[in-house]
């Protein structure tokens, strides 16, 4: 019941955002698919960072136990903060790629202008 309520509410606010974007902010509805694709890419980048962090953490914990002789729990990987850190990493990485693409695009345009 809670789930249905949450989905319905998220659907409602999404429709509201769509109407606001399309009618007031001048966003192009045809580009919504591309935006969803970019969102999935960013989510994917976050998940890749999450998996990478956890995959590196386990052998590191085992190595720390062996080197320092003190007990470090593998349950250190079971912390929600990993998701927050991975979110920051994923977002920064995606925006870095996006900014590099824009810069490359601008340079290409400039070059074309010089040639013309």
């Amino acid at each position, binding site marked *: 019941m809670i789930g249905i309520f949450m989905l319905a509410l998220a659907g409602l606010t999404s429709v509201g955002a769509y109407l606001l974007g399309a009618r007031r902010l001048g966003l192009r509805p045809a580009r919504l698919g591309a935006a969803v694709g970019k969102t999935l890419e960013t989510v994917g980048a976050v998940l890749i960072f999450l998996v990478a962090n956890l995959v590196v953490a386990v052998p590191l914990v085992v190595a720390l136990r062996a080197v320092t002789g003190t007990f470090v729990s*593998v349950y250190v990987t079971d912390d929600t903060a990993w998701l927050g850190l991975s979110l920051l990493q994923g977002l920064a990485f995606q925006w870095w790629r996006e900014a590099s693409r824009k810069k490359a695009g601008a340079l290409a345009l400039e070059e074309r202008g010089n040639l013309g």
Partner: protein
Amino acid sequence: MSLDRVCRLTGLGGVALFLATAFTPLAHALTLWMAVEPQLVPSDAIVVLGATVSPSGILSSESTRRTDHAIDLYHRGLAPRLILLGGARGSGAIEAEIRAKLARLHSIPADAILTESRARTTREEAARVRDLARSRGIRTVLLVTNSGHMARARPLFERAGFEVHPAPSDTDFEPTAPEARLMLMRGLLQEVLGWIYYRIAGYA
């Protein structure tokens, strides 16, 4: 495959898994699928594996569920002893002691309760219980933990020399709130990874 495509497919998988977990009974179905059949037969002791406790002494819902299940098994006359496990976070409250207090509140005599709070992993729990049980002639145990954890814990206790009868604590627990479902899935994933880790390390 380009990095964009890899990210997009990973993201799609992640979003699909999130929606399926939060808004369908997927996590509960997986729990039931992973669950071993309970073997509630008379045994020498009921062993309750540790979960978590807050520093102020509040048992986590997982810890409470396991303890309540064990208390119920005791009152059904399935074993004369209760072995309660669980350490502390730093210098905070000790889980095994809080559990013992709860058991006494449910009319279980103090001399029927054994506690062990030094073990930090499931492997250490099996070793500590073996040490506790040796002098008391305990050979058969009802092992209480959640279904996902049982797959990893059972072989460890069998290796420690016990005849293990699984008594999973969560088969009747079906969360309906999205957050509870996500927590259940997180626990399941954690146990799958733990099982893989124990296999690689040669513990199970």
